[in-house]
């Protein structure tokens, strides 16, 4: 018995030690941070799903990816389009053929030269239906892609598509080395992209971090900081702790409620940046009583948008004055609906709801900062004017499906959602959400809004090549949409990032990217 017991104890000890050693051996290998000054660490909230352009779907993927892989055109913070891998571009008379001059003397990180053929291969892969890129629709208007000589690329469109250039600037349309995608099956992907960017992919420690090193051969200005690390820290408070301890030099997505406390730390700077995302409560425009424009307007008047911005977001958001944010091409300020509960009650009474009405308000929880809190605030403000809104929430993925049902199956009165106009062009924001051809399940018009004049204008603006006429078309459309009030227009979300005070030069882009190629440490 003594022997047996001893055997058991020794056995357990051996197993435990063996397990620990094996596990240790398997996960060891991530180098300790070398010289702190060599490395800039940015903590982001989610791991990129992939850095293969055709598999990218999220802002974290775009943020990491654009340090390694570049696209033809770069969109500046103000929305202007600048040459990147294309040095110039021009269109034929009716804007159906676009010609791009590809930058000469650029090589990929594997030594392959950049040329028109390399770009063609990438774009062809992006639009290949068998590859099935989630964002292939960005180039949906492209019919043919041809490399006409070493450095000239031609895109032929079925019909003019005015926003084509801003679509091409989208972070997901990146150009990787042709060697990387040659011989790849349509369903296949790769892990570490080989691009032309200022940083080179070094190591992806799954679930933990991505490490990039500087590209000494970069065609532009070589970055100052040799090593760039993106850490994935999903928990908000842990991200803040990492910044406070200096484990991270910058963090993205600071919760609004922590801004004041964190800002009091002299070693930490809070950075507010507008985003391109607007948050709204959409009405099901086919359902009684939201078929009545007076009801929809009444509910807009019932909401104190400024109070939401001030008290929930501590001022780090902006009251929406149009269905798209102001940085977007075609934006015109038409709002906000004045906060006026009396006017709201009057309008409701006119529509036959003097005694109030009942409705459901569906909302996600945790998808947008403080989304559930906002929904509760909307509920209580609606109660003030006699509207009894029942809140219902669903987990994000289920929520998306619930609000994507065709008209006859849509079981919601209203739904809280956000939309980022990532191309900074009204087409992306208005056509997708408010054109009647985009009703569920074909598009993102989840509230079944339809106004024939708006449809006409949005169609015309897609093919109009004169920017001034386009802008006017969007202005008219936005005014009509505003009067129709298919949504309760709420607020434009801001991004809140925080940076340690010894770091300068980070670019906090409205497209929710954080770029480090111009960053440096100061003493």
């Amino acid at each position, binding site marked *: 018995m003594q022997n047996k017991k001893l055997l058991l104890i020794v056995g357990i000890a051996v197993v435990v030690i063996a397990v620990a050693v094996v596990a240790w051996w398997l996960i060891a290998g991530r180098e300790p941070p070398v010289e702190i000054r060599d490395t800039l660490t940015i903590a982001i909230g989610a791991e990129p799903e992939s850095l293969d352009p055709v598999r990218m779907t999220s802002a974290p993927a775009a943020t990491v990816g654009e340090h390694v892989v570049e696209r033809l055109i770069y969109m500046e913070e103000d929305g202007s389009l600048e040459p990147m891998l294309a040095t110039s571009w021009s269109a034929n008379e009716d804007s159906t053929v676009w010609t791009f001059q590809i930058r000469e003397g650029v090589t990929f990180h594997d030594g392959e030269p950049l040329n028109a053929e390399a770009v063609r291969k990438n774009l062809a892969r992006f639009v290949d239906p068998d590859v099935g890129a989630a964002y292939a629709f960005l180039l949906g208007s492209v019919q043919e892609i041809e490399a006409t000589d070493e450095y000239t690329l031609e895109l032929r469109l079925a019909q003019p598509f005015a926003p084509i250039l801003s679509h091409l600037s989208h972070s997901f349309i990146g150009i990787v080395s042709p060697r990387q995608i040659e011989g790849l099956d349509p369903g296949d992907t790769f892990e570490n992209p080989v691009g032309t960017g200022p940083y080179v992919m070094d190591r992806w420690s799954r679930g933990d971090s991505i490490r990039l090193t500087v590209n000494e051969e970069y065609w532009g200005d070589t970055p100052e900081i040799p090593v760039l690390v993106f850490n994935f820290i999903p928990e908000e408070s842990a991200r803040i702790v990492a910044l406070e301890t200096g*484990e991270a030099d910058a963090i993205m997505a600071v919760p609004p409620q922590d801004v004041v406390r964190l800002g009091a730390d002299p070693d930490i700077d809070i950075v507010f940046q507008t985003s391109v995302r607007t948050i709204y409560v959409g009405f099901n425009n086919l359902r009684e009583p939201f078929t009545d424009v007076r009801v929809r307007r009444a509910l807009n008047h019932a909401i104190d948008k400024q109070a939401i911005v001030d008290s929930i977001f501590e001022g780090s958001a902006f009251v929406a004055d149009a269905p798209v944010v102001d940085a977007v091409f075609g934006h015109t300020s038409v709002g906000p609906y004045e906060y006026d509960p009396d006017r709201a009650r009057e309008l409701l009474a006119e529509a036959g709801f003097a005694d109030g009405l009942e409705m459901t308000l569906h909302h996600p929880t945790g998808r947008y900062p403080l989304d559930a809190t906002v929904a509760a605030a909307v509920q209580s403000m609606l109660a003030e004017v006699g509207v009894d809104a029942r809140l219902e929430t669903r987990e994000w993925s289920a929520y998306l499906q619930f609000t994507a049902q065709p008209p006859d199956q849509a079981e919601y009165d209203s739904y809280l959602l956000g939309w980022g106009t990532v191309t900074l062009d009204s087409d992306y924001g208005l056509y997708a959400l408010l054109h009647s051809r985009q009703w569920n399940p074909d598009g993102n018009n989840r509230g079944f809004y339809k106004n024939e004049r708006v449809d006409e204008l949005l169609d015309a603006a897609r093919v109009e090549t004169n920017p001034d006429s386009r802008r006017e078309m969007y202005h008219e459309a936005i005014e009509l949409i505003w009067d129709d009030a298919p949504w309760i227009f709420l607020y434009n979300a801001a991004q809140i990032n925080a940076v340690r005070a010894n770091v300068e030069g980070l670019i906090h882009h409205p497209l929710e990217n954080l770029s480090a190629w111009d960053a440096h440490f100061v003493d």
Partner: protein
Amino acid sequence: MYQYIVRRLMLTIPVVIGVSIIVFAIIRMIPGDPARAMAGVNATPEFIEQVRVRHALDQPLHVQYGRFMVNLLQGDLGRSIFNGRPVTTEIGERFPRTLLLATVALVIATIIGVSAGIVSATRRNSLFDNASMLVALVGVAAPVFWMALMLQLLFAVQLRWLPATGIGQVRHLVLPSLTLGTASAALMARITRSSMLDVLRQDYITTARSKGLGERIVVYKHALKNALIPVVTVLGLQFGILLGGAVLTETVFAWPGVGRLLVDSILRRDYPVVQGTVMLLAFLFVIINLVVDIAYAFLDPRVHYRSESGE
């Protein structure tokens, strides 16, 4: 004995198959689909359809399940819908990290829990007993994420002794394993104490004492062995729980283990990864239970396993 082990191992097969059927069905029954989880509000109907076809989600459920089982028998758990990587690779990278965390947490829990339990039992109603049982009560009751944040605040933010997040060095392991081990330690202290008190009341202990044996020998040689039997059960169960249930700890400390992988995959409706992870955890749970049962035979001479039942 060996026949018993083999028989128990065979029994894991129906258990794992049962688990696979349940997981397979449940994950597909909850609303939401992977394409939407990936592309969010931008998911086009074409993309949703493509994802369905590529991952055979347009097939009837039994056909999907059949394919899944055929691939499984060839050691292929499929590819993640989310990032296209083989599920075995995904789990293979994450599981060692969870295993390491759970093992260290369990060692901490056992050392602290069992010793506190023994001392409490032998000095019943002493100051130490009351204090440690109070601490144990708090340890069991305190939410894991709260404990995690408090430890982070104290050791990472205030004292700057340890890193708050990340992996790679031994220092990174301290806070997560302490967090994870605390609740288990508290539970084990309570179990050890009550089990020890039970045993100390029995006749053979009185006999041992009346023979004039020293208290130390009575407690450690005679009582402890029997008192440990329920502790071993709890230990096994706790290990299983720590392996699968470290989600909160892994999230707060950004520790990339299977717990987080599982929860993320459920949110993304990444069916193959969910299936693979749950089946692995179910399998481990069965194995751990088997090991616990075998350990009984060593600890308790009254327990014998024979191939024929009950003989």
